[in-house]
């Protein structure tokens, strides 16, 4: 028995000849926000559906809150599906209360939880409106309210930012951050790495149904060598001879930007110091860390292309 909220071990799912998920193992710790990343068709939604009990795994085990998966666990999970999943003709407050009651709350608690949740998400004014009359952003917020109104211990969000404008993405991100601060364990899948970068400490990256990375966001960034870009009118070819510089790319025609690739642990400021020591005057010095997006592309995209080649 572990203290994890979720333990997935050697999970597999096939649809006919297509293997959607293969030998997938990962965990979610209490209070952790886990980014579940991967390109389309990587097996994210299938995995989340198996955790929810919507799909039955072909192999592997799922343990929730330290116990084998069972229907009794459902009330402790909140779920936001990839596409809007509310009755179009229902009023917003009724929809939230209905799913809260299905999750086991009595009528009074469901109503109170709904009112509080709608108030907290700024939806009190549209409580009496039908779902079909709401904008996509508002409907998504109502959907999120339906997922968390019963105060679940584990929140599963499948592409919560899909199809939303930047403003609504920011609002939903703030709500998820609030839930995380409240101590809820959260798994969310997304294509937008900036959200994962801001919300998650740890990410799991899938490719073709298999896990290709499981670790912290920092560790994902460290998968890529650090790049330093120096813009100067002078010749900076001497940078290639410095310790810790793996390679140096000369500027392209019409450009004055040199790009150096550093070994793990190499200090970028050494390059700046060397430039000054040589009497050159850099116009711009950029030693930004690799982004999660770049790491994701490398893990889920470039490596895939390399493997295919």
């Amino acid at each position, binding site marked *: 028995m572990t203290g994890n909220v979720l333990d997935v071990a050697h999970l597999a799912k096939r649809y006919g000849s297509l293997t959607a998920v293969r030998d997938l193992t990962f965990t979610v710790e209490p209070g952790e926000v886990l980014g579940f990343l991967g390109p389309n068709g990587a097996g994210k939604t299938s995995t989340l559906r198996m955790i929810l009990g919507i799909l039955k795994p072909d192999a592997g085990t799922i343990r929730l809150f330290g116990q084998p998966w069972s229907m009794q666990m459902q009330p402790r999970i909140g779920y936001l599906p990839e596409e809007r999943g509310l009755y179009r003709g229902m009023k917003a407050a009724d929809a939230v209360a209905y*799913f809260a009651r299905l999750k086991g709350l009595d009528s009074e608690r469901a109503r109170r939880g709904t009112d509080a949740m709608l108030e907290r998400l700024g939806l009190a004014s549209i409580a009496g409106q039908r779902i079909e009359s709401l904008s996509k952003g508002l409907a998504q917020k109502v959907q999120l309210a339906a997922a968390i109104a019963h105060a679940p211990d584990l929140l599963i969000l499948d592409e919560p930012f899909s199809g939303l404008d930047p403003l609504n993405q920011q609002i939903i991100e703030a709500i998820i951050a609030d839930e995380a601060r409240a101590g809820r364990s959260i798994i969310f899948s997304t294509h937008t790495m900036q959200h994962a970068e801001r919300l998650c400490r740890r990410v799991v990256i899938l490719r073709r149904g298999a896990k290709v990375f499981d670790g912290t966001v920092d560790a994902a960034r460290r998968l890529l060598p650090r790049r330093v870009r120096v813009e100067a009118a002078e010749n900076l070819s001497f940078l290639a001879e410095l310790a810790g510089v793996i390679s140096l790319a000369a500027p392209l025609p019409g450009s004055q930007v040199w790009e150096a690739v550093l070994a793990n642990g190499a200090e970028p400021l050494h390059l700046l110091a060397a430039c000054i020591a040589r009497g050159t005057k850099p116009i711009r010095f950029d030693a930004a860390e690799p982004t999660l997006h770049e790491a994701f592309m490398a893990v889920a995209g470039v490596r895939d292309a390399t493997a295919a080649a």
Partner: protein
Amino acid sequence: MNAIFLIARREFLQYVRTRGFILTLLLVPGWVVIGGALKHLFAHTDPVRYFAVVDETGQYMPDIDRALADDRQQASLGMLADWARNNVDLTAVAKAHPDVVDILVAHGSDPAAGRSFAAHGGTAALLPILQSLARAHATPFVPPDPHLVRVDVPGAAVDAVRRHDFAAIKALLETPVSTSTGPVSLFALAVIPGRFSSDSPRIDYWSRSQVEPTVQDFLRRALEDGLRARVASAAGLDAGTARKFLDMAVVLDRYSPANAASGGSVTQADQIRILFPCGVALLTLLAILSIASMLLMAVMEEKSSRVIEMLLASTSPQRLLVGKLVGATAAAFVLMVGWIATSNGAASLRAVASLIAWFLSASKWFPALRNARMPSADMPHSHTMCCAMSVARSMSFDAPLVM
């Protein structure tokens, strides 16, 4: 259990709040009301069918006219009986004039009832008796209009018809024919050939409409009666016996050994006991079919909108299925009970609808509407109507009407 109840309640409310459910609920009582009103309306608005007969034998015109008179008496008796049933205290009539009630009750099953009705003086004699015992607020009795009227073929056209002159027959059916009451449009023309007999029971029948059977059915029946009367007469039967032979009908009084209290008679309650389960079974089937389509649409919506994922993430598939079935069954039950309850109310509304229909049929607008449906003696011949009804030689030419 709680999830099943929640799902069932939502399903039930979803069904009963739809426009489709309300419309389906109103279907049966609506049919009762509209059906009653239409029946009353059409009883007074059937277009008059004028037809002519050229009888080359010179023998069968009295048979046709007698059959027309019988039909009119039968129709008058039917309308009078219906009116009396709704507007007259028949118990009082039965005490004061038992013979009148016998005539009114017999109209549905006894072919000779029309003649008996006529023998007792017809509407002119019976209506005052019934009106004297009518209930308060009784609707006025409106006698039926004649639906079939025979007119004579203009003398000049008779020879042309006998020669099967297509142009002359076409002109007869397409242009108004002069009668003593004014010009009328012929609907049909029949030619009884000289050789017409029980050995050669064929006539030629021309009509502007081959799908409207009123006139051809009437002629077939009238001439069959005429032929049978002649065969009976040839066999030595007098006219009265022959008529009795033709009008013969068996009335079956039903008894059951289970009905000791009523001496075995099968009462109306017994018939209801037999028909009620059949009716309930039919309504159940209708309710299931109606709700099944709604259930299918609801499941399709849940599947397409991913609500099904939310549901399956909240409860088991078994509970979801049971909840849906319970909700749908409850809605079907309400539909069925609603049909039965509202049909009873509709039966009362039917009387109101009949009154409205009577008002429409008696008002000054309806004759205009009726005239628009069919060219008649009251209006000039309508070219549009005539074109719409193609003149065609009857099937009887290629496949002669077997009489």
